[in-house]
């Protein structure tokens, strides 16, 4: 069982390394959009600080959404997905490996970049740690939830829009509690509450998503 998990994780990370340009897309998008905000809205530090928590979270969410479509697409097109589905190993374990690889190359870099961008938006000091913590868990939730949508739409020729429609409502809880974690920290309130809810969301999606994704892949491949 660990065999398939490790093999797929290693292969996906190697592939990500080969396609560095593609992988950098979400991170670049995140970077560019957030740099544009002060130019387009106002360079005034106090006003930027007000909107920074929300902006950072919304943009991280969109950046993650950008990358989720490709999660199974490559494997579907070259036939490796077909092969993975008839391995004598549980599909959800392999799916979990793919999701982890996806998070490592999108969610994690986004999380690490966020404090730098927070500085650009003059995020108050109290917000940094909660920002990183909430994104660390939140982006993992986004990868897990996005995988279900990606699996459902993998066989469709132009599934991008449909994918966004399926996944967006499911992203909302993560966005609401993620952004409010940072906002509360900035306003001087305790953040344990929303962080705990994010943790619960993560635990729940970790349990459900691999099974749902594996099921969705079966449905897609039978079509």
């Amino acid at each position, binding site marked *: 069982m660990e065999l398939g998990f490790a*093999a797929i994780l290693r*292969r996906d990370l190697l592939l990500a390394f080969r396609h560095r340009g593609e992988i950098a897309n979400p991170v670049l998008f995140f970077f560019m959009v957030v740099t544009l905000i002060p130019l387009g809205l106002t360079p005034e530090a106090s006003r930027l600080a007000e909107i920074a928590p929300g902006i950072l979270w919304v943009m991280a969410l969109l950046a993650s959404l950008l990358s989720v479509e490709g999660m199974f697409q*490559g494997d579907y097109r070259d*036939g490796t997905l077909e*092969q993975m589905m*008839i*391995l004598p*190993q549980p599909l959800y374990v392999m799916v979990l490996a793919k999701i982890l690889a996806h998070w490592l190359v999108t969610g994690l870099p986004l999380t690490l970049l966020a404090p730098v961008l927070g500085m650009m938006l003059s995020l108050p000091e109290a917000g940094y740690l909660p920002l990183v913590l909430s994104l660390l868990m939140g982006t993992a939730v986004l990868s897990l939830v996005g995988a279900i949508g990606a699996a459902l739409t993998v066989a469709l020729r132009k599934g991008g829009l449909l994918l966004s429609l399926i996944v967006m409502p499911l992203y909302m809880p993560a966005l609401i509690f993620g952004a409010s974690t940072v906002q509360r920290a900035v306003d001087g309130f305790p953040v344990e509450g929303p962080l705990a809810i994010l943790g619960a969301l993560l635990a729940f999606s970790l349990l459900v998503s691999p099974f749902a994704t594996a099921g969705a892949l079966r449905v897609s491949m*039978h079509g």
Partner: protein
Amino acid sequence: MLSNTVLFNTESPNSLALKALAFERDDRLLFSDVSVSLKSGDILQVEGPNGCGKTTLLRMITTALSPTSGQLFWQGQDVSRARQDYLQNLLFLGHLPGLKQSLSPEENLVWWRRLNSNSCSFSNNEVLASIGLKGYEDVPCFNLSAGQQRRAALARLLITQAPVWVLDEPFTAIDKQGVGELEALLIEHAARGGIIILSTHQDLDIKSIKRLSLTANQPAFREAV
């Protein structure tokens, strides 16, 4: 070509049976009542015109598709009950090569070996040399020709220990010499007690090959239209 020595137990012969398989899609019956019994040493060629359901049937045999009705039996056991056991004994090569384009043939093989614990002991270089890819071990697959990519995919036949091979159009894009070598490999696998099911439009130079013609099973064609 290297011969893949070993390794499944030839003492107990293998058996694979298709019982009354049928497939219906969008209210159209693609085929019905396909029944074949195969044992160690059998090579079955699935024939029929384009669109008659060859690929569908092969995918059904790999359990990637479930039949509308009918069953598969592996060693006398219903496959839907003992799927894992059956899949351990199965190798499938589909239309799509199942190669990662940005990885080299060798990296693709390494990945396959990691996923399939029961692969043989030849080194990757030996396997690739014998499949005709010497000197291309480190070239990314997208730089290889169609025939070379097919060969890279076929390299899995040399490292697997699965007795049942299901091959969908394995001869596509392969040159004449390669076709001969592949035929020899198939014969050798059958002689070792394997079971091979393949679809191809080529006339194979293999004696004692069994043929399954899908047109024969096709009902009155699209009666609704």
